[in-house]
């Protein structure tokens, strides 16, 4: 097999607090190919921190350590800020939760997309503008000319998130981290945004890390799923075989989903056990071949 796009081993994110060290991520490891990898876990389980650590965006007092963090075979662990900046945006990018807050309110949408593109691709302003228009069209925004001149507050949530996707994909990164990209959106536009994201990521043969707390969504949308609990991966599953989950936490998550075909009065509460925090992961080993045979 060839090198995976991204290979992470024993990733740890530690915060020094007054009560001692707090580990938000405790030894996470996975390989990412040109696939859609879901990361699921409850709030606070360290999903976002994992994403930010990959981008080198954990700010002090947070500290990142790992045995390995490689992008196409080259280590990106603790690179200098200068070198990391050349990777951010151009090779690994990220879409965040709420476009209301993640777009700059006083810059036009066009300027924000053009900035992202020109930073890495350079080129003339006119050419960058054309690229921005193309990207807006690619995320199915009608009247891209008008949207280019508009400000973020004039856009709806669904539009805003499509703009974010257009902006982050403009410099053609190989990996996109989508951190709960649809959690802040109306249910009615979620599918639409997901489909656009899916198509773009597939067409470009990118690797996608899709972070969510919604197991159902991830199961539909991803090839493989990592289940995180308290900063660790407790189980790795193929999305098709989710029902074969062996870890009690995953089983609990699956059972707490309401089902139309088997309605119940009360959904079961998920009881947690201390042993989950430190038990080893179950499921496929890290070193198995990546789907797609790349």
């Amino acid at each position, binding site marked *: 097999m060839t090198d995976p796009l991204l290979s992470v081993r024993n990733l740890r994110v530690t915060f020094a607090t007054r009560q001692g060290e707090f580990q938000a991520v405790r030894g996470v490891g996975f390989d990412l190919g040109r696939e859609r990898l879901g990361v699921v876990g409850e709030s606070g389980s360290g999903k976002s921190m994992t994403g930010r650590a990959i981008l080198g*965006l954990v700010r002090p007092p947070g500290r990142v350590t790992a045995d390995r963090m490689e992008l196409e075979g080259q280590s990106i662990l603790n690179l200098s800020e200068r070198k990391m*900046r050349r990777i951010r945006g151009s090779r690994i990018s990220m879409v965040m939760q709420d476009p209301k807050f*993640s777009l*700059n*309110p*006083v810059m036009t949408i066009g300027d924000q997309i053009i900035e*992202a593109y020109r930073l890495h691709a350079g080129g003339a302003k006119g050419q960058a503008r054309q690229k921005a228009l193309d990207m807006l069209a690619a995320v199915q925004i009608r009247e891209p000319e008008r949207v280019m001149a508009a400000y973020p*507050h004039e856009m709806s949530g669904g539009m805003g998130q499509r703009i974010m996707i257009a*902006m*982050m994909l403009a410099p053609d990164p190989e990996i996109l981290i989508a951190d709960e990209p649809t959690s802040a959106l109306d249910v009615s536009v979620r599918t639409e945004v997901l489909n656009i994201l899916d198509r773009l990521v597939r067409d470009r043969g990118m690797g996608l890390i899709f972070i969510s707390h919604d197991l159902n969504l991830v199961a539909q949308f991803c090839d493989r799923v990592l289940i995180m609990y308290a900063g660790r991966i407790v189980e790795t599953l193929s999305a098709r075989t989710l029902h074969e989950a062996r870890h009690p936490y995953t089983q609990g998550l699956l059972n707490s989903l309401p089902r139309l075909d088997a309605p119940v009065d009360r959904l079961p509460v998920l009881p947690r056990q201390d042993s989950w925090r430190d038990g080893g992961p179950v499921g496929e080993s890290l070193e198995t071949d990546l789907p797609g045979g790349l």
Partner: protein
Amino acid sequence: MLSLALTLLGLLLVTFIIGRVMPIDPVLKVVGDRASQAQYEAAYQAMGLDKPLVVQFFGYIGDVLTGNFGRSISTGQLVIDDIRHVFPATLELATLGTLIGVSIGVPLGVIAAARRGGIIDQVARVVALVGYSMPIFWLGLMGLLVFYGILGWVGGPGRQGIIFDGMVPSVTGLILVDSLIAGDWAAFRDAFSHIILPASLLGYFSLAYISRMTRSFMLEQLGAEYITTARVKGLSEGAVIWRHAFRNISIPLVTVIALSFGSLLEGSVLTEIIFSWPGLGQYITKSLLAGDMSAVLGGTIVVGVCFIALNLLSDLLYRVLDPRSK
């Protein structure tokens, strides 16, 4: 615009009432202590004081709107002419002070926030604390002692050295500007050496305030999600701070700078006295001590109008800078 008119009306009402309730008899001030009863009555009527208060108030509004603040009893001039004379001195000082405060305070606040807890942040904190707590008269006297008395680097009190007094034709009343217009470099250098010390002093106080406000606005913005977006794009820290965060704080900063400028316009009384600066603060204070109410109220109205104008200006700038307000 309506709220603006109401504010102005409120200002006039307050100054009008103050003018009536002050324990100073305006008639007596005009006719003097030894006037006969008949003379007193005549003056009383001539000043319209026998008319109902409402009528008097409308008369007063008309007067103010036409720039008629009455005659100053201490200078014998029309108050409006006095103000035309002293206001540019204050304006020049406050403008230069604000320029100094902004050009140092804003970058200092931005850097302090960007390197929170670092050495520049600590220095900025101490500088601001000293600025807040140091009495201005002490600092002013020390400044004069050191830079004028001992080192001789700056001109002494007043706006100009004696030999330049009245040599520059007055166009704007701002001597720095007038001497430039006249192309008189010697006069410019002289005026500059006189204004630089008091302006630095005022600038220091405005710097203390502006740098603190800038820092706290900046910290708020640097924690926002769109800043993470900017970093994800791969932008340099400089671009993140100046192109993204700073553009967002420039909006509230406009108000802070306008407020600080306004307070220098009205509040530099002590500085003007220490540096014998013939400005509005000194004029109002002297008039107050002399019981010269027309001058005091005239000066007060000018200060009030300045505040209202600054508010209007910062509102307009707000609308230009913030796309969300459209």
